């Protein structure tokens, strides 16, 4: 928390909300976004400022609302499979995995072991890809465009791998109920390992150019501090919480897929400000690279990757409901699926981590920061708008 200044020019806070009178002329209301280069994706912040300091912030979402949950009520289970990945554009794989996992659990389907390993590999690649995108945004928001040039290109190399494996660059549509759609193409694994080496090398440079950059340190340190006691209050998950020293990682706590067979430690930080969160994320990128290597080494080399499903055109799933979660780059990603015994899901609810991070938390953290820092703060929370409004 920013310390309450003596003789403050700021209006008093009541319940964490500033009390101010817009008509006094002392304050100005500005919109940042949706058409603004400093905003992640398509969303907007309604800022009330005093000078260049923010005294109130309101997040507006819904620019990307497509009504997925409604659309899925009209679609058969298999038809939902291409739909779900669109819920989160930069990191679609978690949607695919979670929807498939929920459906499998409700239908009582056990997928082959190799499919679980391939899924895990896919998810870790998605994590790395998504982080590479994020790091470009984080650096860019503090004026370091070069790093974005490096990492987004690296991300593109990862997308090439995805393309060869799944047939799609952005929307992979690869993990469907029953397993995955195809096995590795010949020579793909070696390509993957080569790309990881390139990524690792550039990450070292990123650390030098960004984490050891005096400008970045000065601006990012102390920006948007999340204290451990806020974690449950605002439902904060993922690196945002871990940077505050709260060691929670779903991969470790309630292992899914094959994470219990992999060797890794939860990455934690000491202070969750923009800089601390960056540190945790970069460590997690190295961890992700390590996990991919472990998976490649430990996974069964042969075997089926898909279980026979009932005829998907009229596949009915017994009534029931379940919730599945996975640790994505931003935190806890979850799917709640309710089936009523028909061939279409009755309700699918998508719990995106940005839902709480970008709205309640952002509104809280933005207060008493600088206009120039909102972009950096926003990116340091790592929010992706499409998963908020769905």
């Amino acid at each position, binding site marked *: 928390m920013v310390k309450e200044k003596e003789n403050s020019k700021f209006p008093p806070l009541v319940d964490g909300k500033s009390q101010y009178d817009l008509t006094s002329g002392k304050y100005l209301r500005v919109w940042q976004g*949706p*058409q*603004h*280069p400093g905003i992640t*994706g*398509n969303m907007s912040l309604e800022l009330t400022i005093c000078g260049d300091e923010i005294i109130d912030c309101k997040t507006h979402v*819904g*620019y*990307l*609302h*497509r*009504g997925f949950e*409604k*659309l899925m009520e*009209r679609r058969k289970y298999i038809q939902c499979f*291409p*739909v779900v990945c*669109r819920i989160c*554009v*930069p990191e679609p794989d978690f949607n695919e995995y979670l929807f498939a996992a929920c459906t499998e659990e409700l239908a009582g389907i056990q997928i082959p072991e190799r499919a679980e390993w391939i899924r895990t590999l896919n998810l870790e690649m998605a994590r790395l890809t998504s982080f590479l*995108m994020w790091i*470009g945004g984080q650096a860019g928001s503090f004026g370091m465009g070069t790093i*974005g*040039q490096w990492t*987004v*290109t690296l*991300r*593109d190399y990862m*997308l090439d791998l995805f393309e060869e494996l799944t047939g799609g*660059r*952005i*929307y992979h549509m690869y993990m469907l109920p029953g397993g995955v759609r195809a096995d590795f193409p010949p020579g793909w694994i070696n390509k993957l390992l080569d790309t990881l080496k390139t990524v690792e090398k550039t990450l070292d440079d990123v650390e030098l150019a960004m984490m050891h950059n005096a400008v970045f340190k000065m601006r990012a340190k102390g920006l948007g501090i999340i204290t451990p006691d806020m974690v449950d209050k605002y439902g904060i998950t993922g690196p945002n919480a871990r940077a505050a020293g709260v060691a929670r990682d779903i991969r470790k706590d309630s292992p899914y897929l094959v994470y219990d067979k992999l060797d890794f430690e939860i990455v934690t930080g000491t202070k969750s400000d923009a800089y601390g969160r960056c540190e945790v994320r970069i460590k997690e990128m190295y961890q992700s690279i390590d996990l991919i290597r472990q998976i490649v080494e430990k996974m069964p080399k042969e075997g089926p990757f898909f279980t026979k499903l009932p005829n998907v055109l009229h596949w009915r799933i017994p009534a029931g409901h379940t919730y599945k979660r996975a640790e994505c780059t931003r935190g806890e990603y979850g799917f709640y699926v309710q089936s009523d015994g028909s061939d279409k899901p009755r309700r699918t609810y998508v719990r995106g981590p940005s839902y709480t991070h970008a709205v309640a938390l952002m509104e809280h953290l933005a207060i008493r920061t600088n206009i120039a820092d909102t972009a950096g703060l926003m990116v340091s929370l790592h929010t992706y708008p*499409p998963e908020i409004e769905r």
Partner: protein
Amino acid sequence: MSDNMNDMDQIQLFNDQGRLLNAGLPDEEKALFCDAAPQVDAPYRGIWEKFLNWARSESLWILGFGTGCGAIELRPLMTSRYDMYQYGVQPRPTPRQAGLFIIGGYASVKTMKRIVRSYEQMQGPKFVLGLGSCTVNGGMYWDSYNTINRLDHYIPVDVYIAGCMPRPEALLAGINELKKLIKEGKGENANKYAENFEWYKRNQKKIIKDWNMPDYNW
């Protein structure tokens, strides 16, 4: 340009003097905004217009507004791998500086309002590129209550690119196609918008229910 517009005929846009009513604005703000409708800019003659078209086509500046998922493939274009600067293309943060609007796929009603506003604020001649299925016929969200089905009902579109998502290369190919059109003098959609202003405006107002901005933003 006529289908099912009957129910919209009662929306009045102009007053007796042919000025825009700006009915959505509060009274005290009406004086702050212009009430003129857009005008058609007649092209210059001969070689001068050709020169201008060449210049326009070789410096396409994109408005940096990621309206939908398509924005994700714009980002790699800006990096060194594809290097769209070599095609004379670069992103700009504000509509005032931009000449090319890339609609990244689906547009929800809420975004559509901002798209209209940004589009009108852009300086002519201006061009629109529709990405993916969603801009053509609704795409994956064809039955969604919150996304439009046809972009060309709301703003004129120059070039469509098939895909979901189109790859960066397809985007570049689309930009090249647009350049060709501009050089041929076919990039006249800003004038088309001015000519059919009423039709577009009625379509827009049919879906954007809380119209609290000027009827024409510029």
